[in-house]
């Protein structure tokens, strides 16, 4: 309860700071602030997909449905954050590049992540029996794990990207105002905390649902 309150206060406080305290970058103007939401959302997307895949592989090894709950919950939350990152990125692209969508390599890779999450959840919804659902979706997740590196690392090398890389590009790092950096990393931390909080809620719900299901089968 206290931790949830602290998390909410932390995120709310830093969002206020993003508007009131942090300066704007000259070229980006008012669109600077997308930085505080878009990149943390993209980071949580990747984190959630990684979490989901690791738990899928763990499920294949240990056959514990707990790992399946973790993988499914992370995929659902990851999809949500992926939509946030995609939409905020598209709005920013409209403001800066003049078009919502242009198949820039970054747009390609995030769209690809959206497809993977969507396919994973569609696959889960089509299998009734829990063990079989866990096993097959874990196998799918493991195969997707093979194709992710190709799209994230190979496609941007084939095609030219306009996407600004303030984290990877060292020159961008020097240009970053210290106040922007503080707000950015604080919100990155806040979004990560948000992910783990929602994740724990979702896993608890899945656990309760399974227990209710087992009880119903036991009595009926």
């Amino acid at each position, binding site marked *: 309860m206290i931790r949830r309150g602290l998390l909410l206060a932390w995120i709310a406080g830093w969002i206020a700071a993003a508007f009131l305290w942090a300066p704007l970058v000259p070229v980006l103007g008012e669109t600077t602030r997308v930085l505080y939401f878009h990149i943390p959302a993209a980071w949580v997307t990747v984190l959630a997909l990684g979490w989901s895949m690791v738990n899928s592989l763990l499920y*294949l090894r240990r056959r514990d449905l707990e790992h399946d709950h973790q993988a499914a919950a992370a995929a659902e939350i990851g999809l949500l954050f992926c939509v946030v990152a995609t939409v905020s990125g598209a709005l920013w692209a409209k403001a800066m590049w003049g078009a919502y969508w242009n198949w820039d390599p970054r747009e*390609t890779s995030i769209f*690809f992540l959206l*497809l*993977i999450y*969507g*396919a994973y959840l*569609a*696959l889960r919804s*089509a*299998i*009734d029996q829990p*063990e*079989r659902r866990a*096993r*097959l979706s*874990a*196998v*799918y997740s*493991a*195969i*997707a794990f*093979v*194709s992710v590196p*190709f*799209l994230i690392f*190979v*496609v941007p090398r*084939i095609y030219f990207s306009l996407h600004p890389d303030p984290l990877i590009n060292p020159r961008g790092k020097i240009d970053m105002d210290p106040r922007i950096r503080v707000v950015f990393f604080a919100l990155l931390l806040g979004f990560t905390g948000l992910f783990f909080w929602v994740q724990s809620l979702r896993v608890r719900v899945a656990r309760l649902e399974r227990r209710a299901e087992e009880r119903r089968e036991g009595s009926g």
Partner: protein
Amino acid sequence: MPANRSSSGAVWAIVRKECRSEWRTRYGLNAALLFAVTGLASTSFAVGRLGDRPDVLAALLWIVLLFAALASLSHAFVREVEGHTMALLRLVASPTAIAIGKLLFNLLFLVVIEVVTVPLFLVLMGAAPPRWPAFLGVLALGSLALGAGATLVAAIVAQTRGRGALFAGVSFPLLLPVLAAAVSGTRAQWSGASVAAELRLLAAYAVALLAASLLLYDHLWEDG
């Protein structure tokens, strides 16, 4: 020890069995060929002749091939599940042998589709490839990666409720790298550039998918 027989003999037997049961009805092959030709004809009808637009040509060729593959490659596994013959098949061969056999059959199937579709495409669009080795190299490696990815997803999707309906949507994320590299390679070939990078990428992806398949097939068919 029949369950451990993943030898080349078992694989070969699976391929022969697939070909024979396909040849008895030819329903999968007929449907796939009709679909491919229909897709091709509607594309060609909509855009006309495109001999001078290599970028559009490459994209259209691979979209036609991708859709033909997605419409037909789940067939080999779905047939076993619908005919309730999967359990029997697993008694006589290991999951890996079944998988490799089905993969070889699917690749053969793709080759048949392409033998019909690709020449027809080149004739209808009025564009001959300037360099046949590069064109066929991209086509072969692209088909290998396409077949490897689609066979693996088909094995998963055959055990779900949606089956055919799910197959295209679920396999697309895995086939997107193939589509990107194959289109880029075919386009480069038409505009006279080097295709070495795309060939390497397609080969690497096909090998990665095949390796993942071999590791994962044991997990796929556990409860029959």
